[in-house]
């Protein structure tokens, strides 16, 4: 009897989880469907879109012909990888110091770092815009990489701090007693043990930088514009561009979706690392 109830519960839970998963995935599924429809078909009633219209790859060809996808793609890759790597260079020593050599105010410093994420970005848009104008960084990959690194730095430090805290300090102490320098201690002892955490930090920050749309739209024009600007160029309140917008969106999110798909185990493992004690 108990077994029957348990199976029913399992089925119910699976059904609920499946439904919720489908609902969450539905917008992306709809983007995929619309991207293969003509503009006229894309605005028809949902059932007509599904069953009474043909399929076409014309939108992808038009989008590529009108906008240089590969230039935007390479800008996205440079900005997201660059900002994540730059962030790691600063965050690993910072997280190491706070995890293994905590001071009286370490917790306060961590909270202060997190508090910078609570400020709406638009609040500092004009000052940063003026700094970028005066330093010639407007519409440059370097400028955008630095800004995205700064925005994601608190998250990188927090994540690494959490992972580092799980590693017993005694192991590092032993390495030190064996004569390891600080550089060797971090590179050959700490880094291999924290690899799942570092990997998930890298993955999450690449995703965050890839999808960042406020700064990438506001600080770029023609040269450094990444895929977020590529999508924005197909949004329009006048005229019909739903299908092309869907095609542009799919082209923009496809690389990160594929990367997320292949690294999901790593990502979940890293994100849940140390969650259950």
């Amino acid at each position, binding site marked *: 009897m108990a077994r029957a109830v348990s199976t029913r519960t399992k089925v119910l839970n699976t059904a609920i989880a499946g439904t919720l998963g489908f609902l969450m995935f539905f917008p992306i599924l709809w983007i995929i469907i619309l991207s293969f429809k003509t503009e*006229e078909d894309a*605005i*028809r009633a949902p059932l007509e879109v599904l069953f009474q219209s043909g399929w076409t790859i014309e939108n992808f060809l038009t989008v590529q012909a*009108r*906008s240089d996808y590969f230039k935007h793609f390479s800008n996205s890759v440079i900005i997201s990888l660059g900002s994540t790597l730059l962030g790691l260079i600063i965050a690993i020593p910072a997280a190491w110091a706070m995890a293994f050599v905590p001071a009286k105010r370490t917790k306060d410093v961590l909270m202060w770092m997190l508090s910078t994420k609570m400020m709406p970005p638009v609040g500092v*848009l*004009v000052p940063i*815009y*003026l700094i970028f*104008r005066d330093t010639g960084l*407007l*519409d440059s990959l370097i400028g955008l990489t630095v800004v995205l690194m700064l925005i994601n730095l608190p998250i990188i430090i927090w994540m690494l701090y959490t992972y580092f805290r799980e590693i017993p300090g005694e192991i590092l102490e032993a390495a030190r007693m064996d004569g390891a320098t600080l550089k060797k201690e971090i590179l050959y002892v700490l880094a291999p043990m924290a690899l799942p955490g570092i990997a998930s930090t890298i993955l999450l920050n690449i995703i965050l930088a890839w999808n960042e749309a406020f700064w990438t*739209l*506001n600080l770029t*024009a*023609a*040269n450094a*514009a990444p895929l977020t*600007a590529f999508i*924005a*160029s*197909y*949004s*329009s*309140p*006048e*005229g*019909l*561009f739903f299908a092309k917008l869907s095609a542009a969106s799919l082209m923009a999110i496809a690389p990160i979706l594929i990367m997320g798909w292949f690294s999901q185990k790593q990502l979940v493992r890293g994100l849940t690392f140390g969650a259950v004690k």
Partner: protein
Amino acid sequence: MKMKNFLLTAGTMAMMVGAGFASAEEITVATVNNNDMIVMQELAPKWEEATGNKINWVVLEENVLRQRTTQDISTNGGSFDIMFIGAYETPIWGKNGWLAPLDDFANDANYDLEDIFPLVRSSLSADNHLYAVPLYSETSFTYYRTDLFEKAGVAKPTSQITYDEFRDIVAKVHDPENGIYGTCQRGKAGWGENMAFVGTLANAFGARWFDEQWQPQLNSPEWNAAITYYVDLMTKYGPPGATANGHNENRALFKDGKCATWIDATSAANDVKNPANSKVADITDFFQAPKQATDKGTGWFWSWALAIPASSQKQDVAKDFLKWATSKEYFQMVGETKGWVAVPSGTRASIHEDPRLLEAAPFAATIKDAIFSVDPSNPTRDPVPYTGVQFVAIPEFQGIGNFVGQQVAAALAGDVTVEEALAASQDFATREMTKAGYIK
């Protein structure tokens, strides 16, 4: 002597090559994603080939573009050499000294500035200086379905009808059981969305945004009558979920045969009358937007134009492109390569008189007449201190217009009463105008 000649020739060649490189400039154009600009992007390589210059296009959604260009031009950022802006921003930015004057276009006989309709030129000028040149201009008129009117026994109005008469017609053609709604009007909140239509409706009912002392008038009986009419009309005869419908959604609904009437931009006519895009191309006709207490300001006026920010370092090249992109030859090139029905309307007299346009788009004459009937300098029944039909040409209007648009949308959704929506709008407008120093 030979050596001297050699050096002279080499020097001249080096100067020529240098000059060649110097003249090849790259300019950045910020623009929206609409059909007319897509055509321009497709034809621009001809200008690039002829001049050796290159254009970098930055295409953004209209609201993003507005925010992005405002931010750049107000901080003297210099990210763009040409901006695609409207009749609202041009005079304000021109007065601020943010745009390069284009007065010297008048000296170019080939460009023929006088050929551009005076109304359009004046709407893109401030303090007698021209600050932008138009790609297309529009007013609003009523799209209607000839087959549904015929079925309901309604004749096409031959003169301007009142909104009361319009409602009677809408009631007759309303047939929701067959998926046809009596009227589709903008409901999506925003000064450029629902307030474009609501602004002209309010004008028709005798309302005004401000009195001569800049005191907001949003709690006046005229505004109340206009919004009450709007909510009543849309609730009884509009499509469900109308607060989500802006220009685009209504255009799609109309083209799909779901609306019997639609009061909106003349610039959509080409698309609606194109059988390749529209199910109702052959059964759509137009008449003037209705009046009520007055016939002033009942059709809006808008112009999309190209301007050069004062911060641009390449103003000469930018001017050269502007002349090319708004010349008679450009419009003719669009007609010859993309079809005359695709030619942007409402800017040049010579293009509107071209027999090829009149043959391909017979409604072009109706559009011209409608545009000529608008007077942005005298938009309301009672005197006002501002210009602009569906907007008020002051910087504060964007914020006020958006807020009132949200209140009107809330009233349409039934979340608040018309009185509550207008009271909140009046408070907001009074606060903003006091803060900006218009009201002491």
